[in-house]
């Protein structure tokens, strides 16, 4: 059955595209969860929706609108700074506004309904070879960026006060990181859609952090889980005819709740 599945071009493309995006999402998502910034990741996806619909209105491929808007928004959020209390509210207001604009763009481009569904919920089975090249290129840029800032990023995420004293430029690191998150969100949105980026960017890393406590092992496990969930999701979708994004989201949630159930009570009693 697995072999029959791979006889189709669109299935092979789906596996490759989902694999690339899943590894990137799992690695970048690990830091997103470590830093407690998942809401920012979520907001970037929503803002990306505006970029994508706006790009279509201008006759540009949606992915470039998505990338451009999320990266700009990520940099903007990073520059706004670390006042976390006010930030969640600000992000909430901005993301509602962004979605509103997205709707406005749709209003002027009504012939766009299927593409909107694809944007919001993903359509990995319709990925073309050219998209795979784009996704791979973006993945290389994203992971190179992450590798470049990884050491100070870890330090600043775990111990911001000490990192500042030791000369880590906190604002630059957090801004660069949000730009990297924006790229990962754009990747992930191609597979599971904007509304479900959490399935690849939060579920696997959160599960990995439940299972292992080392940084390297956590990163590796997060990427492996994201990959496994994405591929298994596609395989299940092939068998059941359910939407792929649903299957991936289901596996992501299952993984997380299974580990929570088994690990958390032990952790609690130790406190």
């Amino acid at each position, binding site marked *: 059955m697995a072999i029959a599945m791979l006889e189709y071009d669109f299935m092979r493309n789906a596996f490759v595209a989902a694999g690339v995006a899943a590894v990137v999402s799992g690695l970048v998502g690990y830091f997103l969860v470590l830093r407690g910034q998942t809401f920012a990741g979520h907001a970037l996806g929503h803002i990306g929706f505006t970029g994508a619909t706006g790009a279509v209105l201008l006759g540009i491929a949606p992915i470039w609108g998505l990338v451009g808007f999320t990266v700009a928004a990520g940099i903007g959020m990073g520059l706004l700074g670390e006042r976390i209390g006010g930030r969640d509210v600000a992000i909430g207001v901005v993301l509602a506004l962004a979605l509103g604009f997205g709707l406005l763009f749709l209003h002027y481009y009504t012939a766009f309904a299927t593409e909107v569904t694809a944007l919001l919920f993903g359509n990995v089975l319709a990925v073309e070879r050219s998209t795979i090249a784009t996704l791979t290129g973006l993945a290389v840029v994203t992971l190179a960026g992450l590798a*470049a800032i990884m050491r100070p990023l870890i330090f600043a995420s775990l111990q911001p006060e000490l990192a500042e004293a030791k000369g880590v430029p906190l604002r630059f690191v957090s801004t660069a990181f949000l730009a990297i998150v924006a790229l990962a969100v754009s990747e992930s949105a191609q597979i599971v859609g904007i509304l479900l980026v959490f399935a690849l960017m939060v579920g696997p890393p959160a599960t990995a952090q439940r299972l292992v406590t*080392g940084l390297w092992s956590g990163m590796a496990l997060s990427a492996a889980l994201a990959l496994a969930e994405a591929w298994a999701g596609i395989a299940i979708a092939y068998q059941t005819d359910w939407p792929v994004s649903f299957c991936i989201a289901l596996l992501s949630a299952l993984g997380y709740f299974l580990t929570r159930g088994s690990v958390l009570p032990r952790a609690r009693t130790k406190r």
Partner: protein
Amino acid sequence: MNVIELDRVTLSIGGHSVLIDTSLAIKPGEFIGVLGPNGAGKTTLMRAILGLLPPSAGSIQVFGRPPQRGDRDIGYLPQVRTVLPDLRVRGRDFIASSVHGERWGVPSLKRAERVMIDDMLAAAGAGDLGRRPLSEMSGGERQRLLLAQALLGEPRLLLLDEPLISLDYRYQEAVIDLVRRFARERNITVLFSAHELNALIGALDRVLYLGNGRAALGTVEEVVTAPVLSQLYGADINVVRADGQIFVLSRGRSVEHAEHTHDESHDHGHDHGHRHA
């Protein structure tokens, strides 16, 4: 040569002067207890020594040179420790992040650096903490881990900002003993800020009291007196010595306990065993 020298220094945050026209000198190997009411500038002074806050007037010299951000001769344990409550990262990786954490690229540690971390964890009695995630540590254990981290890289000056906060008495003594022992063995100069003088009395060489924009540096006998402290607190202060302990009172109430309870609201800790004596 003095380790720290302040020459007519004024430190301001957002236009508000925390320390005004202050001069003082701290010698190598001294253990200085830094005390004073909240907002008196204990943290601000440490940040200035670290080179994070340039003085608005006067000059600061650390090891005979202006403070430099990222000075390897300084070990620092900051007060506001934003440890995420659910941080499931093991202690060893947590403190390893501080070793050359300011360098770009993918983290990697040399063999010698890994050995150094293990040795320090063992020396601080925190060997088992290296394998446990921070989310499962008590306040005292976390503090021991952070102390081990501050001692990494053989610092010549230790800046410890409220390392006793939210620790019960037993752990307070253990932390002070550990710092004292390391400082003596390696001739490290220590600035140790705290809310309560009595816990530190046995360990400190001199006390630095901050308050009202001023600073008083001297032995406990010289500084912890009613006239000096009344000026620093800007209130009528009584100093009562009883049973080898010193109580700083304002209108009959302990100043230190008022401070201490006030500070708890800033503490995001999940720490048990806080002393409410």
